[in-house]
């Protein structure tokens, strides 16, 4: 027959990735149109987890709003608490105490370690390496235990409050944190041998999802996604808050902007976080952990404030406007996951189906923050 000589014809095929799929890390749906193995069109569909926290904040007082912030990026909630408190404190003109600042820094960096460990573990799973997940979660569990010890919650902490923090860190907690830091340092080398320089892992990520520096700035990426492309932008350095200017740490940068570079930025960031935690514990100032003068029901004078922090996923910002009432008149969240995800619709076109997960995983989104 002449079938063998006839050219094989492929039709376009529409497939749904998600919304319920382990590799989408939540409820993200991507409508993929594929031709053979190659993606010709990708439509990310979000909003499955939209709870309208910006609207809810408009009928709650400022202390209540801190609880809402926990629910955005639920695997790294400390920076969420912090950024809202910073914005509200700017509005109210409250100055925090040195001890509260140091405790905030410790908590945020511990949370960054926990969040990056989650990324490290799940990214391995996404690409078929199951073992690193078990190692990463062993250490992440220790961080969560420390959080549970100090504030009673493992994910939604509500620990950072307006004017300071919820409770002081006692000597026992600090001792255990120091023990964890000492335990954790050699583990990072272990991770490198497990996954970072694994030839199969590198082959699947080194040449995939390359985002140039100009593109990254155009898409307004932030956090490790931006730094993976070699752009030196870190809020902790460019716009320091909570005394980050007093700590000695480096900002790891990637070279080509591939998935591996973004991954490697996060792995290196964990080392820097550990450095910051060590310094912060070593020179933890004495004194009160909560500033005086924060009203039970704050009524800031009319005005506007913007605060942003380097969260685990990027530049997390809050714009707050007050009309002088007991609740924020308008709250806007500059959510890094949401903005980082927007590049997916363009970046996926032309990629192979098997690489979708590699790119999506390397952006490291949390759908609670994408949808808010």
């Amino acid at each position: 027959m002449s079938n063998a000589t006839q050219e094989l014809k492929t039709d376009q095929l529409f497939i749904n990735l998600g919304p319920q799929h382990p590799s989408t890390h939540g409820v993200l749906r991507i409508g993929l149109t594929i031709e053979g193995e190659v993606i010709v069109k990708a439509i990310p569909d979000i909003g499955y987890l939209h709870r309208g926290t910006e609207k809810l904040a408009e009928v709650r007082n400022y202390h209540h709003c801190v609880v809402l912030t926990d629910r955005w990026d639920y695997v790294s909630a400390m920076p969420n608490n912090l950024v809202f408190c910073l914005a509200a404190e700017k509005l109210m003109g409250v100055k925090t105490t040195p001890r509260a600042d140091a405790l905030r820094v410790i908590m945020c960096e511990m949370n960054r370690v926990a969040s990056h460990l989650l990324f490290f573990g799940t990214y391995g799973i996404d690409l078929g390496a199951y073992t690193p997940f078990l190692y990463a979660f062993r250490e992440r569990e220790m961080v969560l235990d420390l959080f549970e010890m100090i504030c009673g919650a493992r994910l939604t902490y509500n620990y950072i409050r307006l004017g300071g923090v919820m409770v002081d860190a006692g000597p026992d907690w600090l001792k255990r944190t120091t023990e964890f830091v000492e335990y954790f340092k050699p583990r990072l080398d272990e991770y490198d041998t497990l996954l970072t320089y694994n030839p199969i892992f590198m082959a699947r990520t080194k040449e995939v999802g390359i985002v140039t520096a100009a593109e990254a700035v155009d898409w307004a990426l932030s956090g490790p996604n931006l730094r993976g492309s070699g752009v030196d932008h870190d809020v902790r350095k460019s716009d320091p808050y909570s005394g980050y200017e007093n700590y000695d740490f480096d900002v790891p940068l990637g070279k080509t902007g591939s998935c591996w570079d973004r991954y490697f930025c996060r792995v290196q960031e964990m080392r820097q976080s550990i450095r910051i935690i060590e310094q912060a514990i070593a020179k933890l100032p004495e004194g009160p952990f909560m500033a005086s003068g924060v009203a039970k029901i704050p009524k800031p004078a009319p005005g506007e404030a913007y605060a942003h922090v380097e969260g685990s996923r990027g530049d997390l910002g809050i714009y707050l406007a007050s009309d002088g009432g007991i609740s924020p008149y308008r709250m806007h969240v500059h959510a890094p996951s949401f903005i980082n995800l927007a590049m997916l619709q363009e970046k996926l076109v032309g990629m192979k189906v098997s690489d979708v997960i590699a790119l999506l995983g390397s952006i490291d989104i949390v759908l609670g923050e994408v949808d808010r």
Partner: protein
Amino acid sequence: MTNDEIFAKISAKFPKVEKAAVQVKDYLTVRLAAKADLVPFAQWLKDNAFDMLETVTATDHLGPVDMKGYIRQQNFNPFLPDGATPQIEAVAVAGYAYRPVMDLLYVFYSVKDRARVFVRLEQPRENVSVASLTPLFKSADWQERETFDLLGVRFEGHPNLIKILTPDFTVGHPLRKDYAHIKDRFDE
């Protein structure tokens, strides 16, 4: 660059652009005179090292939130006696200038200079329509969709201005202050 230096540069090129009456604390906030200025101003900022459009959003200045349909039960805590602690009601604050205005906010950031400019543009509240910045900044794409979805601002020239966060059956734009919730199948 300090805020004053940036503003001096801006006013040399755009004399009509003035400092906003309400400044975002610690940052330079400027106000555009007309919506026709938006694209030239954004283009000029992009050419002058402000290469990142960080935020697109808006504020509805109509007044406090319309609570209609907002709260199902005044006292939802079963452990409290009836009427013990009602949910906070949004009330108008005396002396604050509420006005039927949609106040757009754009935040531009310069990676090189580590400087940030907040740009505001006031438009009448009904049928707001401004030019889209998607031809200049890719990051405007989803953020303009979000602003359209939640606040009802139309961006002319946006390639795909459709809902992004709220479900298909939501009628209206939830962050508008007069938005009244209509009961749907998820309410009971």
